[in-house]
């Protein structure tokens, strides 16, 4: 086994895995914190919804679309000055988080919007008929009813962030992607490449499994 994996430094791999976990975890947290309100606003201001506001919707939707249509590799580069301004550096684990959030939040916002659309209009109407205000409709009915969809959305976002985080290795982002690029690609250490990719695959598998379990647990339909 060791003969096959001559170049693999397991401590290095361990640290890189940890870095990936931290990047994905933190960027997922911020993506959800930012994406959830944006998604809720997208839903509420869209046509025939509670706070129908064509202009607000058009602006929000445009910004989200722009961020989503820029290839992530470009977004990584474009975000560098913003990242330096926010964090002081564009390198390492911390430096990777702003571009990851810039990619993850609009992605999650759209998923939030679609999962809110899945909520039966009748439930919103019934809640309105009970004398609920908009805040109560959002927190009392819309979000709880959309919870399984939201969890599925978080899962998909997390998995997307795993691949984005790996890509951030290109601009010195750290983590498994960084390892794969520096050793696997630039030094032709195929064994390092295989191990990092295998670890990423396992990571994604675990995320999907946990996500699916949670969706199932919260589905009462």
């Amino acid at each position, binding site marked *: 086994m060791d003969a096959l994996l001559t170049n693999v430094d397991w401590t290095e791999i361990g640290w890189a895995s940890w870095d990936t976990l931290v990047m994905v975890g933190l960027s997922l947290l911020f993506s959800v914190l930012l994406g959830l309100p944006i998604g809720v606003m997208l839903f509420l201001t869209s046509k025939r919804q509670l706070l129908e506001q064509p202009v607000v919707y058009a602006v929000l939707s445009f910004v989200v679309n722009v961020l989503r249509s820029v290839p992530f590799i470009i977004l990584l580069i474009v975000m560098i000055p913003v990242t330096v301004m926010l964090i002081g550096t564009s390198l390492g684990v911390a430096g990777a988080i702003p571009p990851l959030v810039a990619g993850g939040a609009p992605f999650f916002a759209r998923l939030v919007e679609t999962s809110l659309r899945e909520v039966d209009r009748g*439930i919103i*109407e019934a*809640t*309105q*008929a009970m*004398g609920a205000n908009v805040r*109560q409709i959002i927190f009392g*009915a819309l979000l*709880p*009813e959309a919870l399984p969809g939201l969890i599925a959305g978080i899962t998909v976002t997390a998995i997307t962030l795993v691949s984005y985080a790996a890509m951030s290795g290109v601009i010195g982002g750290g983590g498994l992607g960084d390892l794969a690029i520096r050793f696997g690609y630039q030094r032709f250490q195929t064994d390092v490449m295989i191990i990092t990719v295998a670890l990423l695959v396992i990571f994604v598998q675990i995320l999907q499994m946990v996500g699916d379990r949670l969706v199932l647990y919260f589905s009462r339909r």
Partner: protein
Amino acid sequence: MIQFEDVHKAYQVAGRAVPALQPTSLTIHAGEVFGIVGHSGAGKSTLVRLINLLERPTGGRIIINGEDVTGFDADDLRAFRRKVGMIFQHFNLLSSKTVEDNIAFPMKLAGVYSRAEIRSRVDELLARVGLTDHAHKYPAQLSGGQKQRVGIARALACRPSILLCDEATSALDPQTTQSVLRLLAEINRELGLTIVLITHEMDVVRRVCDRVAVMDAGKVVEMGAVTDVFLHPQHPTTRDFVFESENIDREERQQDLAHAEGRILRLTFRGESTYKPLLGQVARDSGVDFSILSGRIDHIKETPYGQLTLSLVGGDLARAMQALDAADVHVEVLR
């Protein structure tokens, strides 16, 4: 009491105003069960949603318990809506909440009830709708009839004075429909709640309503006590509904009548006269022979009624007619 004064509603579709409700004036009395019957698209859904302002009227005044609700600001409107319960065709329960949490939901939204108050009210309502054993289940685990009972309990949670029923039994099988209607009648009787019920089934109206409005193309075309409207429908739409509910095919009926001899009468009995041995007496006294071509003996809410189509031959016809008239039977000469 619910009063509509020239209330009308039009929707903007692609820049054009499409009328959903023509100017309508009507009064629904406190404590009555008021039915609104009509085909889909007749405007009954719009009408019922105007009562709790889920739909805003394009014009006219809606006065409920003496207050013009169209002038309410957002806070007043929310407070008012708490006093108007509503149940729906597809129940619209929150799938993420248990039965008891669904029932407690409107009370929690109101924000004026203590935990203990909510607890005891939920228990009381669960008992009223017969779901005490299902308190911790989720809606997906219940049958249609049980879901509607949860809907009713939820609608009653904040002790409303008005209950709106939007096709509340249309998604239920006939037996479940009966039990839900019995529950609604019981609630109306015991709590003195005003119930406004929309349906496309005349049979639902016949079982629980006191008065009924028949709608067609955004207009109320006939309105009155259910006994009058049901037994003597005037408008063609009303007749369609009544015939439909009795499974009568009009053409078939015409053909049946064509084969009968003599004079054809339709007798309508109401109340106690329904059970009197009247026909035999009249036949003996006047010497007419009769045969029954069609008929139905049933109830409208609690009032028994009978409607018989007879052909009469021989004897003293005038005397027979007189005797029937004297016995408080409504006689219509069909031929």
